[in-house]
C-alpha cells in the first residue's frame, strides 16, 4: 500500500463537521473536470492513490481516466463499496428485496434465477454478495485497483449482526476475482479485529479513524493505540484531522508517532492543503523513523 492516499469526501459534499463547508466543496467539485484537475494536481504532488466511494459520479471519473491515460498514467484507485445512501434510498423506495435485485448486474449468470426468486430462495448470500461486489466494480474496469475496501456501514453492520461470514466472503471474492487486497473500513477497530481473526482473515488491511481526540474511535483512544501497536493488521488511518477539529501539524504528528500505521488517507479541496499535509506526513514519518 502507498503511504499516502487521497480521499474523496470533499468531492461529494461530505464533511463531518460542517454542512456549509460540505456544500461549498460540493459546489466547487460539481463538474467532473474540477475533480479531474484536482486529481492531476494530486498526482503531481506525488500522491498516486485515490481512495474513493463507489458513488455514481466516480463512474464518470473512471471513464475520463481511461480516456486520458497520459494525464493519469500513475493513478491507482482503492474503491470503497458500497455507497450506502444509494442502497438506503432504494430500499425506502422499493423495499429490501427489490432494491437488492435492482443492483445486481444485468449480465450476471444467475440474474434470471434471482429475478425468479430462486437464488433468493436458496438464501445463497455468497452469490448475492459476489454479485453486488461485481456490480460495484464494473465502473473501475481497466483501472488498477490493488486494494478494495468494504465501507464501514456494511462492515460494522455485519460485525454488529454477528454476520462475520459476509466479511470472509468479501475478502475471498476480492482476492480471487480481482487479484486485489481486501480492506475493511470500520468505526469499531478493536471489535472488528477480533471478528476478522475469528473468521481466519490474517493480517487484514483495516482503515479506521485514528485521531488525537478519539473522534469516532469506538472503544476509546487507549484501546486503539494498543491494537495498533500490538495486533497483526495493516492499519490505514482516516479522519486524522477529525474533520478539522485538530490542528494539522498536531494531527499528523500524532498519527506518524504510531509507527505501525502503514497508510494515511486524507482529503482536501485545495492543492495547497494537499502539499502542506504531504509535507507534514513526510516530515513526521522521517522523524518517527529516526527516533
Amino acid at each position: 500500500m502507498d503511504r499516502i492516499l487521497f480521499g474523496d469526501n470533499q468531492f461529494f459534499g461530505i464533511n463531518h463537521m460542517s454542512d456549509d463547508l460540505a456544500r461549498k466543496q460540493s459546489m466547487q467539485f460539481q463538474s467532473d473536470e474540477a475533480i479531474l484537475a484536482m486529481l492531476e494536481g494530486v498526482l503531481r504532488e506525488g500522491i498516486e492513490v485515490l481512495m474513493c466511494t463507489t458513488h455514481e459520479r466516480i463512474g464518470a471519473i473512471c471513464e475520463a481516466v481511461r480516456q486520458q491515460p497520459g494525464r493519469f498514467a500513475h493513478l491507482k484507485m482503492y474503491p470503497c463499496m458500497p455507497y450506502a445512501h444509494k442502497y438506503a434510498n432504494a430500499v425506502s423506495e422499493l423495499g429490501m428485496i427489490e432494491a437488492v435485485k435492482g443492483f445486481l448486474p444485468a449480465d450476471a449468470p444467475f440474474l434470471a434465477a434471482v429475478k425468479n426468486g430462486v437464488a433468493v430462495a436458496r438464501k445463497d448470500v455468497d452469490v448475492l454478495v459476489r454479485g453486488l461486489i461485481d456490480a460495484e466494480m464494473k465502473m473501475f474496469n481497466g483501472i488498477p485497483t490493488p486494494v478494495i475496501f468494504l465501507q464501514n456501514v456494511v462492515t460494522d453492520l455485519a460485525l454488529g449482526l454477528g454476520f462475520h461470514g459476509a466479511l470472509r466472503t468479501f475478502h475471498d471474492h476480492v482476492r480471487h476475482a480481482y487479484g486485489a487486497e481486501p480492506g475493511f473500513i470500520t468505526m469499531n477497530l478493536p471489535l472488528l479485529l477480533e471478528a476478522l481473526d475469528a473468521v481466519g482473515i490474517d493480517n487484514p488491511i483495516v482503515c479506521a479513524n485514528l485521531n488525537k481526540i478519539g473522534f469516532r474511535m469506538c472503544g476509546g483512544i487507549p484501546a486503539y493505540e494498543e491494537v495498533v501497536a500490538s495486533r497483526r493488521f495493516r492499519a490505514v488511518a482516516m479522519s486524522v484531522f477529525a474533520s478539522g477539529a485538530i490542528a494539522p501539524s498536531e494531527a499528523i504528528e500524532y498519527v506518524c508517532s504510531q509507527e505501525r500505521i502503514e497508510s494515511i488517507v486524507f482529503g482536501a479541496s485545495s492543492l495547497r492543503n494537499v502539499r502542506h499535509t504531504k509535507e507534514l506526513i513526510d516530515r513526521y514519518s522521517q522523524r518517527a523513523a529516526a527516533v
Partner: protein
Amino acid sequence: MNTTKLPPIRIALAGLGKMGLSHQAIINMHPALDLVAVCDPSTYLLDLVGRYTRVPTFSDYACMLDQAQPEALVIATPSRLHEAMVRAALERGIDVFCEKPFCLDVKEGARLVTLAEARSLVTQVGYHNRFLGTFIEARRMLAASAIGRVHHASVECYGPVMLRPKGRTWRTSRIEGGGCLYDYACHGIDLLNFLIGTPNSVSGSVLRSVFSALTDDEVYANLAYPDGVTAQLSANWSDESHRKMSTTVTLWGTNGKIEASRQELTIYLRKPVPQLSSLCQGWNTLYTTALTKPVWYYLRGEEYSAQIDFFVDAIRQRRVDNHCNFRSGHATDIVADMIRRDAADSDRVGGGVAPAAGAVAPARWGRALQAIGAAVRDAPGAAAKTLKGNP
C-alpha cells in the same frame, strides 16, 4: 453506559427492515442486552437472519412474545402496525422501545400511554435527534436562558427520498404511515417539542405531493405556542440537493439566536451570559466533534447507539418518566395529526388546491378576481353597478 454486572435484559425485536437490522446490530453489541428473538413476516429475511446470526426467529409476533418471553422489546415495523404490537407487549408487561412515529391513531396512542403508565412500564419512541450532541447542547443552552426569551423557532428537514413518481412500499403510502409528514416532519416536530415544548395550535398547513401518488412529499406549517411564541416547520423529502436527511433548527430569542444541525451548533449572543462563560458575545460555533459522547459500538451515527443505551439505563433504573417516553412520542403524534387536519381543512376551503403557505392569500385573491372577471363578462351592466357600490 451502565456496566454493572446484572443479568442481561432479555430483549426481542420486531421488524427487520432498515431500522430493524440497524437495531439488531446495536442490540447484539450491547453488553447489557441479550437478543432472544426477532420477528418479521418476510420468510426470506427471517431465514437469512436465523441462519447467519443464529438468533431465534418468528414469523408470528404474538408467538414470539409468548414463547421467547422477552422483558423488553424494540418495535421497528411499518407505522400502521405499531398500535396493535405496542398494546400486545404492554399487556404482557414488556418494556417497549417503538420506532417513530408512535401511533397513527392518536386516540389509541393516548390509551397506550395510559396503559403503559398504569403498569409502570419503561417506554421510548425512537426520535434519535434527542441523542445528538448538537441538539442536546441547544437544549442545555435554552435551559440556561442563553438567548433570553425565545419568541420564534424554525425547523427544516430536507432530503432525497422521493425523487421520482414511483415507489411501492409502505413508506410511499399515507394510510400506512408513509409520507413526508410521518417520515421527515415528525422529526422536526419532535425536535421543537424537545427544545421549546408543545404547540397549542397549528395553521397554514400544507401537505402536498411533489412526485408521490399516494402520499405527501412536502409539509409546511405554522405552530403557535403559549405566551405568543411561534414556529415554522418545513419538511421536504423530494429535495435532491441534500445527500441525506438534513435537519436544522433555528431559535430566536431576546438575547440572540441558536442554529443547530447534526454537525454544528452556532449561537449568536447579544450580551454574554454569566452561566455559560465559555461563550463570548457575538458568534460562537461548536462542532459535533467536541459535543458527541463516545458510544460502545458505532453504526451510522452515535445517536442510534445512545438511544438504545438510554433505554437500557431507563429499564435498569425503572425510569418511566424519561424525556422520550410514549407520552412524549404521543405529543408529537398529536401535532402531526393537527397538521394533517389543518391541511385537510385548507384543502376543502381551497377546493382541493393545496398551495404553499405563502401562496394561500394570492390564490384566494386570484379566484376572487376571476369571479369578478366572469361577472363583468356575463353581465357588464350589473357588474358595473356592483363595482360602483350601487347594486
